[in-house]
């Protein structure tokens, strides 16, 4: 049984518009059987935070193309992507890429 984990979940680049425009969310994930990873976090976000049009955030079991995932300000690709296990006080940032010029 893994203990509850407190993480900061942030949205930017427009992704926050799917979350009532709120950029910063302080989140406590309840204790559960397996450890929390990004895969579980996405499911939790979809269920608890996402306000509209989930297809603009989630695609399959990952984020949709064009959204960067940063774990403590570093690209999630450097840290195992969906399999990264959340640590207490981690900061997870979902940033939508801008194309305007």
């Amino acid at each position, binding site marked *: 049984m893994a203990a509850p984990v407190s993480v900061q979940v942030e949205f*930017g*680049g*427009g*992704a926050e*518009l*799917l979350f009532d425009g709120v950029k910063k969310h302080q989140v406590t994930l309840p204790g559960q059987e397996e450890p929390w990873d990004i895969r579980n976090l996405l499911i939790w976000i979809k269920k608890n935070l996402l306000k509209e*049009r989930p*297809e*603009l955030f989630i*695609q399959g079991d990952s984020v*949709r*193309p*064009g*959204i*960067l995932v*940063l774990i403590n*300000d*570093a*690209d999630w*690709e*450097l840290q195992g992507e969906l399999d990264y296990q959340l640590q207490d006080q981690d900061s997870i*940032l979902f*940033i*939508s*890429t*801008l*194309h*305007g*010029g």
Partner: protein
Amino acid sequence: PLPPKAALSREEILRYSRQLVLPELGVRGQLRLATSSVLVVGCGGLGCPLAQYLAAAGVGRLGLVDHDVVELSNLHRQVLHGEAREGHAKAHSAAAAIGRLNSAVQCVPYAEALTPATALDLVRRYDVVADCSDNVPTRYLVSDACVLAGRPLVSASALRLEGQLTVYHYEGGPCYRCVFPTPPPGESVTNCADGGVLGVVPGVLGCLQALEVIKIAAGLGPSYSGSLLLFDALGGQFRCIRLRGRRSDCVACGDQPTVTRLQDYEAFCGSSATDKCRSLQLL
């Protein structure tokens, strides 16, 4: 590329004296700027301040690409174009404004869209490329052309009250496709017409983009290769995040690239590079 240059003229020494005195730049750096050429893709909210400061700094040649004409609704952010230029091609308008600021800079306006047919030839004629475009197909096109031609790409974007800046394909760093292997679904992309943008936000980003170009052209090296600067204008906050490195399996810059010529990027992205009336959503 421009021919090498052995010395600065008396007028150049006077004109650039305030930056020649910087030990980090000096005469050597100024000579490198004077013999460098930069392709500016897009003469809008980012391209205007970028071209302005590159010309002021004494970059030797500026290629200015834009297929669009100046509209009144551009002027809150596209500060090189005046009211009198409404209806004129942005590439020509920008070239005229730059000529007034620094007549020694060679300006080459291209009043046409960058296309898969023309991009590679064009990019090969310049040392550094600045992506100031406003749509996804063009961003993939510019990146692939830079990889094929072996040119560094300084890329900025701005929307609403936010901006982003990074450098692609610089000395072994990632390219656009390394970071974004799959284009976003068309309905998830917002343009400036729909999402809006505060004019000074591309102003800030265009200046920072010009700074990265100047550092590359002068031999100082960029700050944002492999990292991404995020700017939140409402909170006045900057944040630098670390991107992945070059992917050895990248289809464009990887060890066995499959993108060996330019493609149909509108088909690849499922959206148009020039159609301003496409229906887009808020995100």
